[in-house]
């Protein structure tokens, strides 16, 4: 069991800055994120894009902002549970929250701060009616272990780097047969990966179907055939053991929707006095919260985090008085 003072859900900019502000009050933090790396949207969607509205930075790349926030949080030794989604919460008999992740990791803390941004990033699923019937029996949205596909027939869909890279990898003596299906003629992956895929297709080592789209899945207990719609040739059937649609990630509110929080339009309602939710001990900061006048800006999330930790402190130590100390006067002393 991981014990901490503030359990932060979401390791984006807002969650990371919470570690710093909490650290100044000698509160320890642990972050949970469904993505395998910290930084949230900034790292996942637009690491190379500049941000112009961070005070004192006329321009900073999103990825660089994350690096600096990590550096700023570092003295306070935050813990991380990455690549796991916060799933369920319950209270124990000492009024502490027990949070369990999708992989069963348990965390215990008196305070939960939801800094979940847009929610958790999940694979985008093609809109095929009976697709969910095959989710454990032949359709996978992420390749976890390539050995799983040894000597199997595999169809991959998508036009980005992950589709190209896995096609190349599985075609190299792993899968017995690899087919790549892509909606357009052109690919958006790295040029050398695109070239390699073209070469493999020419050598007959993979089957490449462009201008085509998988529109149907079928099988008895396990996936057996895919229906592919080709722009020129019309519908055709492919025999396969596996289909791996790789269409990127999109954010979903996820399990926190079931935590009895007041939710409006996919955002958690908070009191702007301290960004507390309707559940005592649970706060929500950054893009995931909503209140009259809310602006989804990193800048505003930092402010919310700062006020939130003050309230969290008073909740943990009701008898202690809190005095605002300036870092310029006192410096930053880590743990």
């Amino acid at each position, binding site marked *: 069991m991981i014990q901490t003072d503030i359990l932060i859900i979401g390791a984006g900019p807002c969650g990371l800055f919470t570690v710093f502000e909490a650290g100044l009050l000698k509160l320890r933090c642990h972050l949970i994120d469904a993505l395998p790396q910290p930084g949230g949207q900034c790292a996942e*969607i*637009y690491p190379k*894009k500049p941000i112009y509205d961070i005070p004192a930075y006329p321009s900073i790349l999103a990825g660089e902002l994350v690096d600096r926030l990590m550096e700023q949080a570092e003295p306070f030794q935050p813990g991380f549970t990455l690549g796991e989604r916060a799933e369920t919460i319950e209270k124990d008999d000492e009024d502490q929250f027990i949070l369990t992740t999708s992989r069963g990791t348990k965390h215990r803390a008196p305070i939960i701060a939801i800094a979940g941004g847009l929610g958790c990033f999940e694979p*985008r699923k*093609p*809109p095929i009616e009976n697709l969910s019937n095959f989710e454990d029996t032949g359709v996978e949205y992420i390749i976890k272990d390539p050995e799983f596909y040894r000597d199997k027939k595999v169809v991959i869909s998508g*036009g980005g780097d992950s589709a190209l890279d896995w096609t190349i990898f599985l075609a190299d003596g792993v899968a017995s047969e690899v087919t790549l299906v892509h*909606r357009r003629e052109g690919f*958006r992956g790295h040029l050398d990966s695109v070239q390699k895929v073209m070469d493999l297709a020419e050598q007959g080592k993979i089957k490449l179907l462009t201008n085509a789209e998988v529109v149907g899945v079928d099988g008895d207990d396990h996936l057996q055939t895919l229906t592919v719609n080709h722009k020129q040739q019309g519908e055709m059937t492919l025999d396969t053991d596996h289909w791996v649609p790789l*269409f990127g990630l999109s954010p979903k509110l996820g399990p926190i929707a079931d935590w009895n929080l007041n939710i409006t339009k996919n955002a958690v309602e908070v009191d702007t006095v301290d960004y507390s939710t309707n559940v005592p001990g649970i706060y929500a900061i950054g893009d995931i919260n909503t209140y009259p006048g809310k602006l989804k800006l990193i800048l505003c999330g930092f402010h919310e985090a700062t006020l939130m930790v003050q309230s969290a402190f008073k909740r943990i130590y009701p008898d202690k008085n809190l005095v605002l100390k300036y870092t310029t006067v006192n410096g930053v002393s880590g743990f």
Partner: protein
Amino acid sequence: MSMIKVTVIDREGTSHELDAPTDMGMNMMELCKSAELPVEGTCGGMAMCASCHMYVKSDHALPEKSNDEEDMLDEAFHVSEESRLGCQIHLADDLDGLTVHLAPVG
């Protein structure tokens, strides 16, 4: 302020006629959001998600799609010849009468 009229047909088929300013640097994703139509605009307008996918129904001559926009449409579903990302349609005077249909969420 110069204004044009734009028609947005939502996913239920209801038509919304919107007044759209052309001098505020706005795009169709932002216009839909400001009218509280169900357009997510997750990435904020950088053509880095596909949550503002819409079909252009009128025959206005829109600028060609950028590579970024083409790439993102690859990750969308229900893509057709009429598909565009709303965030890449910048409101301008020559788009008066533009009609779009919101694509299904997927």
